[in-house]
């Protein structure tokens, strides 16, 4: 089943997973080799990085259950990361994406790493952009400032330079007040849905499973990430058999938005495209 979405060349496909209890909406854009993109905690947005990938890939981007418009309660169908991983694996198979590349950012990176660890043959390649999912006492970090702190602090948590073009585009509210309100509500609820699997400490045991991740993996990290410290690039790398790390200078938690050129270059080199 498919329907057209608001963006001109984005098609929304719907996949029934989890024994029919979840009507997963997957935005699809572009042409070429299939690529699965897993969005961060704040929900799915098409940024220039994804648009670039869509030039020569068919990008499949599922909306995390609960974050789809009009289907807020879907989040209550998933109790833990195990449920999420199984539901997503069903979706990957239903969409015929087995063997594709998976790219995940932050929460989506954690999800990509979980999927690739639980099902080592599921993906051909794995790209993790500042993923969550590990927490070691040597490098403590918290989500409290972003989940329960003054909202004015959020730009400096996410960006090395909150005045960069990507950050300004991200935080510019739509001119239409009704759209701005809807956007703000959707953002807060999306964080609430994904926080079910992140809060209060974003560690649901991935460190015990990462050794199973056997696909070639690229780990990209903003050197000045103020949310998940850059030290975790190496924490991921040393637990994964075949992983390389690219650190992006002058960059915070969202390299694809703050430093899109460097991020695209690193990902394209890894994908050989």
């Amino acid at each position, binding site marked *: 089943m498919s329907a057209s979405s608001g963006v001109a060349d984005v098609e929304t496909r719907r996949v029934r997973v989890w024994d029919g*209890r979840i009507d997963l909406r997957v935005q699809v854009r572009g042409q070429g080799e299939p690529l699965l993109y897993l969005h961060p905690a704040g929900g799915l947005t098409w940024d220039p990085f994804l648009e670039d990938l869509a030039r020569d890939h068919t990008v499949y981007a599922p909306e995390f259950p609960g974050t789809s418009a009009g289907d807020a309660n879907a989040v209550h169908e998933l109790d833990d990361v195990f449920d999420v991983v199984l539901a997503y694996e069903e979706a990957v198979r239903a969409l015929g994406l087995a063997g594709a590349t998976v790219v995940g950012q932050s929460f989506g990176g954690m999800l990509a790493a979980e999927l690739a660890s639980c099902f080592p043959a599921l993906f051909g390649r794995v790209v993790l952009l500042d993923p969550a999912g590990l927490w070691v006492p040597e490098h403590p970090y918290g989500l409290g400032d972003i989940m329960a702190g003054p909202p004015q602090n959020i730009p400096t948590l996410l960006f090395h330079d909150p005045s960069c073009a990507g950050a300004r585009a991200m935080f510019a509210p739509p001119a239409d007040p009704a759209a701005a*309100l809807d956007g703000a*509500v959707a953002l807060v*609820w999306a964080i609430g*849905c994904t926080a079910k699997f992140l809060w209060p400490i974003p560690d649901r045991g991935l460190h015990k499973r990462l050794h199973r991740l056997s696909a070639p993996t690229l780990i990209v990290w903003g050197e000045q990430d103020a949310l998940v410290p850059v030290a975790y690039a190496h924490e991921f790398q040393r637990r994964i058999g075949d992983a390389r790390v690219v650190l992006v200078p002058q960059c915070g938690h969202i390299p694809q938005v703050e430093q899109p050129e460097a991020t695209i270059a690193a990902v394209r080199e890894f994908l050989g495209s």
Partner: protein
Amino acid sequence: MRFTYVQQFTYRDFPPDFPQRFPESVVTIPYHELVDPQRVRGAFRNGLDEMLHAARAGFDAVAVTEHGHCTYDMSPNPDLTAAAFAYATESEGIEVGVQVLGRTLGKTREALRVAEEYAVLDQISGGRLLAGFPVGLAYDANFNWGVPPVDTRARYEENYRLVMRAWTEREPFAWNGKYSQHPAVNIWPRPLQDPHPPVALTSIGTPGTTRLALERDLGFYLVSIGGDPMVATKPVFDHFWEVAAELGTDDNPYRAAFSGFVAVADTDAEAERLYARHIEYHFSSGIGHLPLYRLAMPGGIPPEALKQLMANAGPPPEGPPRYRDLVETGAVIAGSAATVRERLEHLARTFRVGNMGLFLQIGSTPHELTKHNIDLFTRDVQPQLRPVFAEYDDRNRWWPVRLGGQPASAKQAAVAGSAAGSAAGSTAAGSTAAGSTAGGGVAR
């Protein structure tokens, strides 16, 4: 009317620059830097003494509340102070209710422990317990306790069912919940009151909560965080009675309670002289010093309700309110006994509410002044307001039988049948549990 004295265990001795130095009164406040341990001890001794004083002075009940990581109420588990109070009053033979506004069921990770503690309290007090079940504040349930906000409601619902069933089920039963599992629930003791202590839902009055209270015939205890009661509180009770009419329940005013900060003196001017700075302390360094992000976290409020809240959000207040503003708006009811009587009666009749929770120890109010406030209230306010709604006195099923109430409605426990309620996976033991409660009801 019924009158409850509400005690909080407030640290009363912060320096005057506290609100400038710290952005809030909870969660992040450094303990060792700010407190004199003997003054913390004093807050507990004074607080317990004030509770006992209120009981001796004639309050119908004395209540405590639950707040973790909190400077204005150092009460991570109110059952502890309630236990001390229950024994002291039993020992003195004071016929006063022991009201716990609540162990927060959206927060607790040990729901069965809550059932057990309340049962013990009911035994120690000889059947004087009034049991409250709040959901839990975001900063406490979700931040301090780490419960993902999106799970809070479901956790509350499941925990409520477990507590009610643990109290009322006669035979041991297995509990296969999402948040707790027990092979054979058979708590010792069970509550003394039959079928169980009266239960109230403590809430800030969201529409879903008021409806739930009515559907289950629970008491509804409204906690207000401030503001003009005619603006902040009236819509909640208007809605409450509309839903009651819609559901066809009675309109007994004893269903509901509202709370307020009250300060009584010989004259209005004397009240200002005595209490102004202590009340301002509470609003600048205590309950009034809570940023919005401590009261709501992403996931705690569903999108539709969130949209309503965000659309109606006004600008934040400019600076901490002054005593005169607080009194003028009605956020605080202070003045001579006549002034206080008139205001409270007006609110009670406007809201149609038969129970009042009175905060008489406000902010930094010292011990002797608090006792003075209690004495004036119980001498010059309470007796005069007592007859309001007296025609319902013989139909109060939200009050312990020992203290003149009627037994709690069987509806309160009638949802106790399954672990997961209406959600899928309700596999609790496969027993016929729900049928064994007094009303024989099953989940709606």
